[in-house]
């Protein structure tokens, strides 16, 4: 079989294509691009980061425990950093770039952008989660026991419980975050990686 000749004979069209080409207003077409979905997921993440940050800022006005306030300042800083980093990635994902860049460049750009963004978050998590847990523990313990902070904090039993809580909750939160990242972006990233490997 002369595949060049056979290929050239394969001219055609079908009803589905003709119907799309007869649409009078293309803006009514709902895009199913995964890039659009990824952008949407990023935006949802940014909105949540902003809401949580505002909540932390609000807490600062009501809580006068300096240990908790330091934890809140650190959390506000990291939340803002993550929201800003997500916003940068969101702005860098161009859905309508598909006709101007080569396939590999487009795939690589999206893949690297997401991996880099996740690496920053992953490392931040390991630093931020113990602070968040300790801050929450101090606040909860203080409100629950109604004892002075110093008395509460220097209680060896409480310190042991804090240590155990960190040992359990930090890995749990870390792997939970990894699972959520994989759930939201994993399939798409795997697909991008496999296509990049095919093109290598």
């Amino acid at each position, binding site marked *: *079989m002369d595949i060049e000749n056979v290929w050239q004979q394969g001219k055609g*069209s079908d009803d589905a294509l003709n119907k799309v080409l007869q649409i009078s207003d293309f803006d009514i077409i709902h895009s199913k691009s995964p890039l659009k979905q990824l952008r949407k997921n990023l935006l949802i993440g940014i909105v949540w980061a902003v809401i949580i940050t505002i909540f932390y800022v609000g807490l600062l006005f009501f809580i006068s425990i300096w240990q908790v306030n330091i934890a809140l300042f650190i959390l506000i800083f990291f939340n803002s950093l993550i929201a800003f980093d997500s916003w940068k990635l969101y702005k860098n994902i161009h859905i309508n770039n598909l006709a101007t860049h080569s*396939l*590999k460049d487009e795939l690589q750009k999206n893949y690297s952008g997401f991996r880099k963004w996740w690496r920053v978050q992953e490392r931040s998590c390991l630093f931020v989660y113990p602070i968040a847990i300790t801050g929450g523990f101090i606040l909860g313990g203080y409100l629950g026991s109604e004892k002075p902070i110093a008395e509460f904090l220097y209680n060896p039993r409480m310190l042991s419980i804090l240590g155990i809580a960190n040992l359990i909750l930090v890995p749990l939160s870390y792997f939970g975050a990894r699972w959520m990242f994989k759930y939201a972006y994993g399939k798409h990233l795997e697909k991008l990686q496999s296509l990049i490997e095919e*093109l290598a």
Partner: protein
Amino acid sequence: MSEKEFLSQLKEHQNIIYKLVHLYANTTEDKKDMYQEIVLQAWKSFPAFRGEAKFSTWLYRLCINTILTLKRKTNRIEYTDTVAFEETYFTTAGNEEIDRLYKSIRTLPETDRAIISLHLDGYDNKEISELLGITANGVGVKIHRIKQQLAILLKDI
């Protein structure tokens, strides 16, 4: 450029969309999604089209990039004697050779399908390398390997 002129260009080159979609769509739903996504992306990207490349090249790039980044039901269809092709895609009824060729190409890895379709549509290695972002030498090697695979597949199907 008006919507009318855009549509006229698109209709003139609809064969590119048709061929590529049928190399990748695994179900009728996939096919419709791909058509819609390509036309939507083309419409949104068209204002940036400066005419530096031919419209056909521009559309080819857009189709490949759109299709390969779009979600599909499954990546590849394995053909066996008992598994029938979901539907007859080609209007060239009775031309079994075309059907066999498409079936064979559809068993290749996704990026190889793009490479061979570009090659069969007359794009040279340099153009293919620019469209896909791989080296021209790499394209040459891949085309040689794909043709060998197709020769074997066409004997089997």
